[in-house]
């Protein structure tokens, strides 16, 4: 048999199937397993519900690698995505960096069952970050500066980092790290505690602020544009879904996203509540 994780056998998917009509009774909103994505999915879900769409939520499922297929086979209908991330997932060799370049290329690489809707201005970039002390001590401002010290640095990040990024950093910046540590959600803490010297964290991660980390600039754009973009299964989505999600993308910007993430991660407000407030404030629900 093939790799079960890439088995797209639609027949095995329990929810609506890929061949379902546009009037599919139920829209399944999924999310990856990190709070920001859950927040975005909540926004999508609540907005759709406000429009009378029947929604099922499947949040916190896993990483892109796992859930992309779920959208493709129709088990999920809608997924908040990041255009750059999705592109490098589909084509690791792609060098597109700007929002439009990325989206154009993305549309050509996307499976035929899928489409992306409008990208929002809101971005959540990947970054390589270090502590202020490290930055000062080795005078680091860009990723290029890391080249001279990388062999003494341990790098941390979510498990995907190793597979997706390590090679890119080697090719583009010539970085060979001393050691790779899968620090996952603790990356920011690991950087702070010194368990790793540099780590892959998201720019909207409030812990960058809390812990006073310094994201290094990415002049060669290994980290491409990361605009929040709804990925939908064509068959599962109707026009109501499309217009609703596009309306959201129009209103969502980075500052707003960072504000919301502060509430979620620092104030411990729950994503659905935060989502609801944002929708109300923006007149979307």
């Amino acid at each position: 048999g093939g790799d079960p994780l890439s088995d797209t056998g639609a027949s095995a998917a329990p929810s609506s199937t890929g061949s379902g009509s546009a009037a599919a009774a139920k829209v399944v909103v999924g999310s990856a397993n990190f709070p920001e994505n859950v927040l975005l999915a909540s926004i999508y879900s609540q907005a759709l519900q406000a429009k009378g769409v029947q929604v099922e939520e499947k949040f916190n499922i896993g990483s892109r690698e796992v859930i992309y297929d779920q959208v493709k086979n129709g088990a999920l209908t809608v997924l908040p995505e990041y255009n750059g991330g999705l592109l490098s997932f589909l084509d690791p060799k792609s060098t597109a960096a700007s929002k439009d370049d990325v989206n154009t290329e993305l549309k050509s690489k996307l499976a035929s069952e899928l489409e992306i809707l409008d990208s929002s201005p809101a971005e959540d970039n990947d970054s390589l970050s270090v502590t202020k002390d490290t930055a000062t001590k080795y005078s680091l401002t860009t990723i290029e500066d890391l080249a001279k010290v990388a062999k003494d640095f341990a790098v941390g990040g979510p498990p995907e980092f190793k597979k997706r990024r390590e090679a890119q950093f080697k090719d583009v910046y010539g970085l060979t790290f001393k050691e790779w540590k899968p620090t996952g959600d603790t990356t920011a803490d690991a950087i702070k505690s010194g368990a790793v010297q540099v780590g892959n964290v998201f720019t909207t991660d409030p812990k960058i602020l809390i812990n006073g980390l310094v994201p290094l600039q990415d002049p060669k754009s290994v980290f491409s544009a990361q605009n929040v973009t709804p990925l939908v299964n064509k068959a599962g989505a109707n026009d109501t879904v499309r217009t609703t999600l596009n309306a959201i993308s129009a209103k969502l910007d980075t500052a707003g996203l960072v504000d919301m993430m502060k509430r979620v991660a620092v104030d411990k407000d729950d994503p659905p509540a935060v989502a609801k407030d944002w929708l109300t404030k923006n007149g979307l629900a």
Partner: protein
Amino acid sequence: MNWLIDFFGDPANWSGPGGIPARLLEHVEFSVVALLLSMLIAIPLGLLIGHTGRGAVLVVIAANAARALPTLGLVVLIVLLVGVGTTWPVLLPLVALAIPPILVNTYEGIRGVEDDLRDAAYGMGLRGGQVLMKVLVPVAMPLILLGLRVAAIQVVATATVAAYVGLGGLGRYIIDGLATKDFPSTIGGAVLVAALALVVQLCFALLQRVVVSPGVSRRSGLR
């Protein structure tokens, strides 16, 4: 099968800090330390309550409730509380997981020794400690070992959760494989864990031969 070949055939998987030997060692280390810690707590306690009969009901109820403790929850909670950088977040939940079977089996083993035997031992002039160590423990040994075996296997299988909070061990292959959709890695990790668990079973089978007197094991028809 080719996933296994993909995984085990990849030389990169055999060296360095992310290689199988290193991961295996980490996994064994967690497991052994957790098992030793829980033995240190559960065996003396089990012997004590089994021998004196005091506090047994309470301890057994507590141990049963402890079986319900979700390891994942404990792991993340402890990381939150004590931070990353130590292995305690994995050790403590694993210890909590291992204590109930060891404790309950030790207690039941000691308590289950026939009164006759206890009587005979005291009647011959053995002192309390001698009765415990020279008679009760050897006779209860099969049950004590059974408890240890169950605990060890659960610990080995559950130590995979450590990977979720960024710690090492064979769970890395599973968690990372899940995150990156690297199926060979997931399956390879699972196979390694299962193999380790089987080795543990085997070790206990051997241990049983060595530590349990044939007079006890064959009497009760144990293997």
